[in-house]
């Protein structure tokens, strides 16, 4: 009997430690990935069935509430601007010189035909706020040791009920991520690379997103420059800035 009790206590304490570790890992990941604000320039290469196209943009964001993106190229997209405030989105198109307000549901649509939704791109909520994590094991990815974390949603308003993340156990950045439907079906996969240290934090500057239900080679998102905790003028996050 004593043996059973000891075994149970041992299992419980292991599970507790496991949960603690996973949460700590996630917190450290959040510290790397989330920031008060950021300014970055990026290229997005959409690999479709009929070929590839690359879009470059400059983005400013404050937490998960405010984001502003200006598309710099190609010529067809140049000058297009997006402003996200809370769960609302405005898009300015220079060809029509009009600003269109789109409801929160539009955030779920694909960004310019890519494998990313506006929500994927703009949702910057901390993983620890949304998911409870457990360490499921460890794996080696391209010579880096990783923990495999399984994340299960602890709040209801999340897009993905379950995530699986491979975390570099030295740098605390994700190297691979899989997003699952409630039914357990794999929906999206992303692979992070070119991890660099900026302002004391490790950050992946290349991410390949792939919608696993769709044909194609996915969308490659590359950050060409990024700065954290900058002073961003407040007018950037106003509708007036869209037409400037």
């Amino acid at each position, binding site marked *: 009997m004593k043996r059973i009790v000891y075994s149970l206590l041992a299992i419980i304490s292991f599970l507790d430690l496991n949960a603690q570790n996973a949460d700590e890992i996630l917190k450290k990941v959040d510290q790397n990935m989330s920031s008060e604000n950021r300014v970055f320039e990026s290229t997005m290469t959409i690999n479709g069935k009929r070929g590839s196209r690359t879009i470059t943009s400059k983005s400013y964001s404050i937490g998960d509430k405010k984001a502003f993106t200006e598309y710099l190229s190609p010529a067809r997209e140049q000058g297009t601007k997006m402003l996200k405030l809370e769960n609302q989105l405005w898009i300015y198109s220079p060809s029509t010189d009009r600003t269109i307000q789109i409801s929160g*549901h539009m955030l779920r649509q694909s960004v310019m035909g890519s494998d990313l939704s506006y929500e994927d791109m703009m949702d910057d909520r901390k993983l620890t706020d949304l998911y409870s994590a457990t360490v499921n094991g460890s794996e080696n990815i391209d010579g880096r040791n990783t923990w495999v974390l399984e994340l299960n949603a602890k709040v*209801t*308003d*999340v897009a993905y*009920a379950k995530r699986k993340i491979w975390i570099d156990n030295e740098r605390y950045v994700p190297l691979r991520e899989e*997003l699952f439907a409630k039914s357990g079906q794999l929906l999206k996969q992303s692979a992070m690379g070119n991890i660099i240290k900026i302002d004391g934090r490790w950050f992946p500057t290349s991410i390949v997103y792939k919608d696993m*239900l769709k044909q194609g080679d996915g969308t490659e998102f590359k950050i060409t420059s990024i700065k954290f905790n900058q002073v961003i003028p407040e007018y950037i996050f106003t509708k007036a800035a869209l037409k400037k």
Partner: protein
Amino acid sequence: MKLAFKLAFKNLIGAGLRTWLNVIVLSFSFVIIIAAKGILVGWDRQAKNDMADWEIGGGQYWHRNYDPYDAFSLSDAHAPVPPEFKEEIANGNMVPVLITQGTIYPGGRMQPVLIKGIHPKQNLLKLPTQNLDTTVGAIPAIIGANMARANKLQTGDYLTIRWRDANGTFDAAEICITQIFTTNVPTVDLAQVWIPIENLQSMAMLPNEATVFTFRDGNLIRRGDTGEWKLMTFETLVSEVEEMIKTKSAGQAIFYSILLILALLAIFDTQVLSIFRRQKEIGTYVALGYTRGQVVGLFTIEGAMNAILAAVVGAIYGIPFLMWFAKKGISLGVSSAEYGFAIAETMYPVYSGSLIVGTTILVLMATTIVSYWPSRKIAKMNPTEALRGKIQ
């Protein structure tokens, strides 16, 4: 008056070929107007019947947030089935439909769709929902032929469908196409997947909820709006088809009015020529005691009689032609998928009594006016001069 008709008839027949040319051209107008308008009447009737059979029954109740032209309204356009509808649903006089947004992946392509949940045992609409009452190892689904063609889908195909539940969380499952139906109503076909409502309620985490209720006849109209549900009468739901047919009718009128104008122009010319050449005759009528008004009336009747003769001639060849046309129909070479609203591939014209009477009155009145117009000159004529045949 009787004499005037007799005289007019004799004069017309006496004019020979000139009269018959006018009559034949005018009779073409008769037949073409009736045939063209018959197509629109047939289209209107067919579209409304098809819409009633496939989609709207005797009317619908919509959730107050539902907007069929705004897919983004769907996430807020659902509510539990109200208690007052439950008896109607149990009796089969009402069908609840839950609508959500989703995405299918036929052959690895991403295709946004509306997922519509409906009772498999309903018999109010023509949708073959009995094919949803089956076990196939996936969610059974029925789709329209246009949807199947656009996505290269066949009966028995399995494909992945992705949707979001009420909290916005993604979910995905396999569906199996158990039936492909053919309909002229694109609003139940294009970019839509029909599955059992219980499955959809469970998938979307909206138990016992619906977006739209379709009812069998007009009895429920008396209730009016109720709670969160807005009454959409049959007339309201088909008003867009009516508007569209009105627009088409206006466009069509341009074509047949050209033909009618040509015929009327010929009659006008004939009248002008008659008055010019028959001045002695006019003078004689006045000398015999006819008032100027009676002479004008005589010439007007003579012109208008062209329309009566045209109606007779038109009937001789038009009735068999229109009957054949009504049986054979006309294929416009467009599908409802291209048009976006109910339209049959072959349209069968319908000739109502009002259409025939209305067309006859229209042509008769137009002919009378163009006959009267040049005849007014007679009133200004000097009878003595006219009798002498002097040109005035």
